[in-house]
Structures are given as structure tokens and as C-alpha cells.
């Protein structure tokens, strides 16, 4: 247990640092997928195997591919020096991040969480699905949240299409052609 935890924690934190400090944007994306992979391992340790499968499918698969597409469309000449990829707040940002991390760790470690015991999550995928749909005991709120997320995904997909639609010369020339044709 300790070995697995140490391996996953090291993989996750080193990959996260790689995302921040890598000079190549594609390397950043691959480090990000490594970090998500370690988080999926943590989900398996925390008795949520269905969520780990979601994590692998959505994050390691879909989000990484979408971000690689974004990098491909906005390809820049590769930078050589470290100072061109970060702005002037690098040390101030490090101080703030260390402060936030230290404060959060201190609060989370010193807080008394009562009787905690591992293995209380729902390993059962059927129970997980019932909770997610709001039919399980004590999870009635999810009946609303699930539909809200469905509406949000629908709106987000339409918004992504509308925002990224090519609306300058191509559309105008296409409408010109149509007007000439009519």
C-alpha cells in the first residue's frame, strides 16, 4: 500500500511539475496525461474503480487528444529559453503557490476528521450508477444535478461550435456565391 501510494504520488507530482516547467508544449500535454493516469490509480486505491475508468476514458483519452488538437492548431515556433515561456511573476507565483499548498496541507492535516476508515466507498458499479441517477438512498439531489449537467454539456457543445466557427472571409464568400447563384 505504501509503495503504491508513493509511486502514484511521485508520478502525479513530478508530472504536474513537468506540465508547469516543460519548454515544449507537447511535452506538457503528455506530462498532463501522465498526471491524470496517476489520479486514476488513486481512484482505484480509494475504491472507486468506475470513476477510474471514467478518468482514463475522458481525461487520458479525450481531453488529452483535444488539447493536442489545440496545440496543433496554434503551433508556435519552439522556444529555446525558459524565460520566454513564463511571465514576470514566476517567483511571486511560486511564493503564492507554496503559501496556498502549505496552508491547505496544514489545515487538512491538523483538522480532526473524526472516525475515518478506508474502504467505505461504493466499489459496486450498480450502486454507483444508482447514486449518479439519484435513485439510491440519500442521493436524491443527483436527480437534479444529472439533468443540469446534461443541459450544461448540450449548451457547451453548441457554444464551442458557435465560438470556433469560421465567420470571416469564408462565410462571406460563400454567401456571395449563393447570392450570385440566385
Amino acid at each position: 500500500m505504501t509503495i503504491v501510494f508513493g509511486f502514484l504520488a511521485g508520478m502525479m507530482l513530478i508530472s504536474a511539475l513537468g506540465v508547469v516547467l516543460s519548454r515544449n508544449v507537447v511535452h506538457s500535454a503528455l506530462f498532463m496525461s501522465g498526471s491524470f493516469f496517476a489520479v486514476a490509480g488513486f481512484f482505484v486505491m480509494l475504491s472507486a474503480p468506475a470513476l477510474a475508468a471514467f478518468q482514463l476514458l475522458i481525461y487520458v483519452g479525450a481531453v488529452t487528444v483535444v488539447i493536442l488538437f489545440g496545440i496543433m492548431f496554434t503551433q508556435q515556433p519552439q522556444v529555446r529559453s525558459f524565460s520566454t515561456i513564463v511571465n514576470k511573476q514566476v517567483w511571486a507565483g511560486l511564493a503564492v503557490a507554496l503559501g496556498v499548498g502549505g496552508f491547505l496541507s496544514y489545515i487538512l492535516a491538523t483538522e480532526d476528521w473524526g472516525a475515518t476508515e478506508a474502504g467505505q466507498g461504493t466499489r459496486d458499479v450498480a450502486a454507483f450508477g444508482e447514486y449518479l441517477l439519484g435513485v439510491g438512498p440519500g442521493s436524491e439531489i443527483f436527480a437534479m444535478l444529472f439533468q443540469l449537467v446534461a443541459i450544461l454539456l448540450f449548451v457547451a457543445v453548441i457554444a464551442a461550435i458557435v465560438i470556433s466557427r469560421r465567420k470571416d472571409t469564408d462565410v462571406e464568400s460563400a454567401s456571395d456565391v449563393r447570392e450570385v447563384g440566385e
Partner: protein
Amino acid sequence: MPGPIQPIIDTINQQIPLEGFLIVAAVMFAIGAWGAVIRRNAVVVFMCVEIMINAVNLTLVAFADFLPSAAGLGASYAALIIAIAAAEVAVGLAIVLAIFRSRRTVNIDEVNSMRG
């Protein structure tokens, strides 16, 4: 198996406490926040935001596994957060593409005015 290696085996096999997961997630959140503040490329800023969302997800699932009154519901919240984060990536990358198309840059230090 008695002997001097027994304490080492016990140490290896012992259960990780809740605070271990929480601290690892907090450190990951801090790394993501650092990257979101310092990087210039908008796509890398998105990656760092995703890392922060994953850290929060890890915290939720850890609480759901360790606290008796959570009743395992944290994993369901984490599934909803994954869906929202995927929607955020889609809209965010669409915005980055639109900005890149109009200004030929993804450097967020240069994109500081709302007018196109």
C-alpha cells in the same frame, strides 16, 4: 515472519491515512495554481486548470472513501465534475482557437483587451 524485517513489512502494508491523500491533492492543486499563474501559453494554462480540477476530484473521492457519513456520494460528485471539466475544455479551446485566428497568438500577456 518474525525477525528484524517484520517492522519494515508492517510499514509497507499499513493503510494510508486520509491526510496522506489530502496533502498530495493539496500539493497538486498548488502546482496547478502556480502553472496557471506563471505560464504564457493559454493552452498550458488550460492544462494547469485541469490539474487543479483533478486535485479537487481526488480530495472528494478521498473524503467519500474515508468518512462514514459521506456514504460514497463523493464519487458521484466527482463524475459530475469530470463532465463539467470536459465541457470547460471544449469551450476554452474554442475560445483559444478564436483568439488565435483573430490575433495570431496564444500568449495571454498580449491578449489583454476585450475588443477584437
